[in-house]
């Protein structure tokens, strides 16, 4: 479909929760420094797949999978989950800053990894990239919990950026936010794709259309259609996709 650099690639990937299969034969390519949106009705497996990209599903006791997820020619499923997570960061549905200061939230990741850098620079740099610097530069030592929901979410993005990952996964990052904060996050995603590959799961089709370059439509654990966002939303080739984006179900 495209000639661009593929960083993340699932190959015949299946996910099971106990007996129940959640993802069927997934073959999906994620392109470098682009935003890929995954849409679909709730329960279609979009978050499940996203959480597999950085092995967050390992915490689910009944989780099981086969196939492969390739990242830099290696199979993520065979790597150390901690290593994977340092390269592939994640932003969650609900802002989840640690109950620490803003400053310590940012440096927590690099610090536990023993990375010797200038932390002040790292904090400033990360916060600037997350478009939060101007709002918090005078109160870096205040608790992150004092921030508004939208600011907290941007702090979580900054925290992820501080790890200098290749890929940032976003699991419905705006679903807990008000419209104004949502717009800020969406603008931010647009800036971030200059440096990072972003995969975003969203139930909001307008959002997918606004921020993404590619869109994948999932239905009941299967990839129904995957294409350039413009094309998928204007001329979907699949009937189910068309029904979904025109609001006939979901």
């Amino acid at each position, binding site marked *: 479909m495209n000639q661009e650099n593929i960083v993340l690639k699932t190959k015949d990937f299946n996910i099971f929760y106990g007996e129940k299969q959640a993802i069927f034969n997934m073959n999906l390519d994620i392109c470098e420094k682009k935003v890929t949106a995954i849409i679909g009705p709730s329960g279609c497996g979009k978050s499940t797949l996203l959480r597999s990209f950085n092995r967050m599903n390992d915490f689910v006791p009944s989780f099981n999978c086969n196939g492969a997820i390739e990242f830099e*020619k290696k199979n993520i499923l065979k790597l150390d989950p901690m290593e994977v997570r*340092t390269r592939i960061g994640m932003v969650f549905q609900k802002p989840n800053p640690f109950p620490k200061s803003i400053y310590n939230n940012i440096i927590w990741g690099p610090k536990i*990894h023993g*990375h010797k850098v200038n932390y002040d620079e790292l904090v400033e740099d990360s916060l600037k990239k997350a478009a939060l610097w101007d709002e918090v530069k005078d109160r870096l030592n205040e608790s992150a919990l004092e921030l508004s929901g939208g600011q907290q979410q941007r702090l979580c993005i900054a925290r992820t950026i501080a790890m200098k990952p290749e890929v940032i996964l976003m699991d419905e990052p705006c679903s807990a936010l008000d419209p104004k904060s949502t717009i800020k996050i969406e603008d931010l995603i647009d800036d971030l794709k200059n440096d990072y590959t972003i995969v975003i799961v969203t139930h909001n089709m307008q959002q997918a259309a606004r921020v993404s370059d590619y869109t994948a439509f999932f239905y009941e654990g299967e990839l129904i259609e995957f294409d350039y966002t413009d094309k998928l939303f204007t001329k979907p080739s699949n009937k189910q996709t068309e029904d979904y984006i025109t609001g006939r179900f979901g």
Partner: protein
Amino acid sequence: MMKEKTEILINSNQIEKKEKSFATIHPGRRRAEKAFKWISRIMTWSTVFILLVLLYHLGKEGWEYIDWQFLDSYPSRKVAKAGIKAGLWGTVWLIITTAVITIPIGVASALFLEEYGVKGKIGKLIEINVSNLAGVPSIVYGLLGLAVFVRWFNFERSILSGALTLGLLIMPVIIVATREAVKAVPDSIRFGAYALGAHKWQVVFYHVLPVALPGIITGVILALSRAIGETAPLIIIGALAYVSFVPESVMDEFTVMPIQIYNWASRPQEEFHQLAASGIVALLALMLTLNFIAVFIRIKTTKRNIQ
């Protein structure tokens, strides 16, 4: 072979290119993780080890004297003749009396807190009060019982004094357990009854109480099994160690198994220690029986609720 090598080459190139990221995990962190997990594991299983050692020790020390004669004899200076009959019957009398007095009051208090009162100021006060009472040392209840029941009410060192004292002691436990059980009753049952025009007392007594009953019984039995093991408050109110008769009314003097055990254990002679262990085995067996009944009721009723 060749293929593998090129792959490694590619990988190392990748890592070099990404020097700034944190691709490798420092081995020290892995070691710390492993050590931490092992420490946690050892600490956790040590609790099992402690329990096994405790039970083994009790069994080893206690098996020699435990027989029918032991259960059916009064205390004696001669180890071979001594038994726990007085304590056993004292405990049975005491627990039944405690149950009869405490259960209605405890359940009623819990129903009041859960169904009527908690929102008001008095309800809040009672709630805080109950949780604080649960933390008062048992020996303080003993002094309360001594001053109020033994001396002021003049019940002397009777089973009644003991039962009232223990009743106050386990009241918070019963209230908390009953409240949990009542809380678990779905509101739909209450609304259903109200919708038919029932008064609150009818809802509470005819609908809520029957549904909550299994949970209440379980909680009450666990509270009573705690009361069986109580020693200090009964020593304070003056339950005696040397009782060579079985009580015949609630006004009789009495002893209980834990006091008898204490008496034997506090003597210097080795044989009496073994006698104490036998008493402990009997005491634990009694508590275990009660707990089994509680578990049995819990299993029975959860099955019924699932169906």
